[in-house]
């Protein structure tokens, strides 16, 4: 469980985040949305203890994040960040096994290797196991990283998964599967916080949405409460319409602007 209390973050006298508070309960999938530069990635970095907040505090399992040891944190939460460039030719299996490093000393146990197997299959890259990571496409690499994060918290009860734009570079099917997987993990009791760019995905999958604007929490609540036409217009500066199609069980957000006229 993550408890964020009045967190603020300043860098060189510039306030990047101010007075953010929310609670992530086990089993919840939180989506963090907002325009570019709103502080989404900074928030993920604070939640992952890479940065420490300049004011306020973050509690993980009721204990201040700063008081957890790095090694212990590695056994509670996994982080998937945006940039994942690896130039050395590690195999996919070796990369995913790195998620198990905090759990063994010298040699991986059978259990570690089995978890790697299951996680590879979970993200649909079982067949790429022995391929060299740099030869994969961007979307495939992102899935390897997801499998690595998954392997890290696979057997943790109420583990925490922090995702910074997890579906970057993935094709439509794998974007769907990634969110599907996140939902499935949440159902098992994991707490998930993800930076999501596609508002439709946030609307469709998230349990709770945190909307950031200029480092402040602009709106917070269920997707239906937060993702309405007025708030999206205020935060992104783009008028949208929320369309409820009779063939779909969920509404769809579409830009509400006239088509670009080509005959000028």
């Amino acid at each position, binding site marked *: 469980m993550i408890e964020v209390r009045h967190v603020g973050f300043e860098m060189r006298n510039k306030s990047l985040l101010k007075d953010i508070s929310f609670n992530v309960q086990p089993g919840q999938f939180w989506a963090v949305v907002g325009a570019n530069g709103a502080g989404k990635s900074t928030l993920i970095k604070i939640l992952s203890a890479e940065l420490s907040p300049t004011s306020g505090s973050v509690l993980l399992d009721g204990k201040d994040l700063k008081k957890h040891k790095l090694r212990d944190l590695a056994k509670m939460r996994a982080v998937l960040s945006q940039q994942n460039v690896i130039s050395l030719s*590690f*195999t996919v299996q070796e990369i995913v096994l790195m998620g198990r490093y905090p759990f063994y000393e010298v040699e991986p146990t059978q259990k570690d290797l089995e978890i790697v197997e299951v996680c590879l299959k979970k993200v649909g890259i079982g067949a790429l196991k022995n391929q060299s990571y740099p030869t994969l496409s961007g979307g495939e690499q992102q899935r390897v990283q997801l499998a690595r994060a998954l392997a890290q918290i696979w057997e943790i009860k109420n583990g925490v998964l922090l995702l910074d734009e997890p579906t970057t570079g993935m094709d439509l099917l794998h974007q769907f599967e990634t969110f599907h997987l996140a939902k499935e993990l949440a159902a098992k009791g994991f707490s998930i916080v993800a930076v999501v760019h596609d508002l439709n995905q946030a609307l469709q999958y998230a349990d709770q949405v945190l909307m950031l604007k200029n480092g402040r929490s602009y709106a917070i609540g269920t997707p239906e409460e937060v993702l309405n036409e007025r708030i999206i217009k205020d935060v992104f500066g783009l008028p949208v319409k929320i369309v409820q199609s009779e063939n779909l069980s969920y509404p769809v957000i579409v830009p509400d602007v006239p088509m670009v006229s080509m005959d000028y």
Partner: protein
Amino acid sequence: MLAEIAKEPDQLTNAASVKRLQLPSSTGKMSWILGSLLFACVVFSACTGALSISLAELWEIIALKLGFIQETRVEEQKSIVFWVIRLPRVCLAVLIGAGLGIAGASLQGLFRNPIADSTLIGVTSGASLFAVFVIMLNVKYFSALNEWVGVYGISFVAFVGAALTTLLVYQLSKITGDGGVTTLLLCGIAINAFVGAMTGLMTYLADDAQLRSITFWNLGSLGGANWTSVLAVLPFVGISVFFMPYLSKALNLLVLGESQAGSLGVNLKVLKRKVIILATLGVGASVAVAGTIGFVGLVVPHIIRTAFGPNHKTLLIGSALAGSIVLTLADTLSRTIVAPSELPIGILTALLGTPFFLYILWEQKRKRL
């Protein structure tokens, strides 16, 4: 349906019911191949030289010493050459090669940069500066003490210089930067340039005799090898080679990036300090007794990576073994190629290393296409 994934069971299978999962690992194979190769090189190097020793003679010399046989027909002279000159020199080559190789591999891992080696953190330039300083003073003022100060004084002072310069680079990177590895790299470059300039200034002021000593020192040589220098280097390289492999998991994680490594429990500050201390121990001691020997720390890890993969568990041990092999062979060549004179080993490693390095780069590119 949608995915390969949807139907897969999430439960871990019962270990007993499936085949044992294996992690493809080349560590065992690598140790075996390189270990035997090193042994062969050591024997070859011990037998080759101005006074040639055959394998049978070598066996008798060793067996006599160990008490397996009581008498031998091998001339006493060969036995003395082997025990007093050849063997310590081969041992020194093995130690220094291992120290340079493992330091190069671990620093390339730490900096996540394939062109990093021990010169970058100031070990080599610092040792050079202090050694040149001693050579200048020595020739000028301490000619009476020459014998003693000349041999051990330079080694000791060079080691101190290596350690001090590295410490300076490290502390400077802590003050000026956010603790990241890039700052360390930049500080290393800056301090190297400064120390290089100081060395250059002294070289400029040096007279002919001093210049000759300085040049010879800068090109590196194992000519001064004896059991004392072997025993002096052994603990430093030993600590470096023994403890560095414990850092291989953390160095692997660093491949994912500094922040991802942090989220997997790597404390970058501690890791950085450990790698630098261990690398400086090994390289500092090596440079102190043999001068600057370039290219081994840079090229050897590339060879191992190309042959056995980038996993640091294999890479660190492999680079130590391969470094020993390369230096043993290079030293054998350096003392035989222009016999009875000796070619400085640094010239040989760079001369042979460069085309080989280019070949590796070309090969890597070819593989990628």
